[in-house]
């Protein structure tokens, strides 16, 4: 469940990035706000790219133990 650590899912990250770009393009911000948004956008862009390039697919096996509890373990293929 390593991915549960990520505060945002990739889709949410991308949504936020798109929102930032749209607001920046909408032209109703003062320069201070625009700069702040730009910085956040760059940071999110970097995070997203890092996430994509560092990723390696994980394969797990889900079983149920005798007590009916979920058991997740690495899948050896």
């Amino acid at each position, binding site marked *: *469940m*390593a*991915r*549960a650590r990520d505060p945002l*899912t*990739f*889709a949410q990250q*991308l949504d936020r*990035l*798109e929102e*930032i*770009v749209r607001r*920046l*393009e909408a*032209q109703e*911000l003062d*320069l201070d706000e*625009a*700069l702040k948004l*730009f910085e956040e*956008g*760059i940071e999110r*862009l970097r995070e*997203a*790219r890092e*996430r*994509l390039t560092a*990723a*390696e*697919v*994980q*394969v*797990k*096996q*889900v*079983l*149920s133990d005798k007590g009916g509890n*979920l058991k*997740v373990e690495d*899948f050896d*293929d």
Partner: protein
Amino acid sequence: MVDLLSTEAGGLWQLAFEKTKAALAKDGLLDPARKRPLPPYPLRIGVVTSPDGAALQDIIAVTARRWPLAELLVVPTRVQGDGAAAEICAALALLCRIEGLDLAIIGRGGGSREDLWTFNHERVARAVAALPVPVISAVGHETDVTLCDLVADVRAPTPSAAAEAATPDLGDVLVELAHLGARLARGLAARSGRVAERLDRTFDRLTGTLERRLERHRHELSGLAGRLDALSPLRILERGYALARDEQGRVLKRVVQFPSGLRFRLRVTDGEVAARAEES
């Protein structure tokens, strides 16, 4: 193996298929409006399939290539033979309990046409329809559609195709990110450009005001200069008067200031002349 579907028994199976299909349809499970869109960037994908089949290997390979962000949670089950339907239903029930699942694939590699029958069981079809997340079915053949295919949100011809349908392509997403980056930069540049323009305009207005004020002052100054000019003693000299000053430049205005023999200077309109006081 005898081809059951072409025998009389096959006709009975066809009958059973139609009957079950009608029952599912009656409950609205085949309604196209039920079909859910697939999430664009799934992080947890549940896979119900045989753990040692080519289907799973294909799904893993395609996902690793296209979308390595994904975590594949495999719920192993037999997909053919006696008792397979019950096992699949148990696997689907397990799948429902996984937290944070984005998507499910139910897959099956090659096999005989008869083996497809597992996926025509009403129990299996209803369990697939009941999944809380969108599901891709890759269990049929090109020519044989199963009831599991019909209730799924998306039907894929092969397990590889299911994995392709389930995932975005990493390269496409990186290109999309690059576009967003470019828009980000352009957005800021446009924003700062507008600020620069505004500064320019303000500056222009400011300097415009200054210039107008200077112009006004220049007018006033030239008026003053005219008046000063009129008052200038030089203008009086022009009219024929002369100004007498001693060697130190003091103006000599009275007779007593002119003792006999005093050397002084007379300023007339076009210059100075040296002069001396005579005995009066």
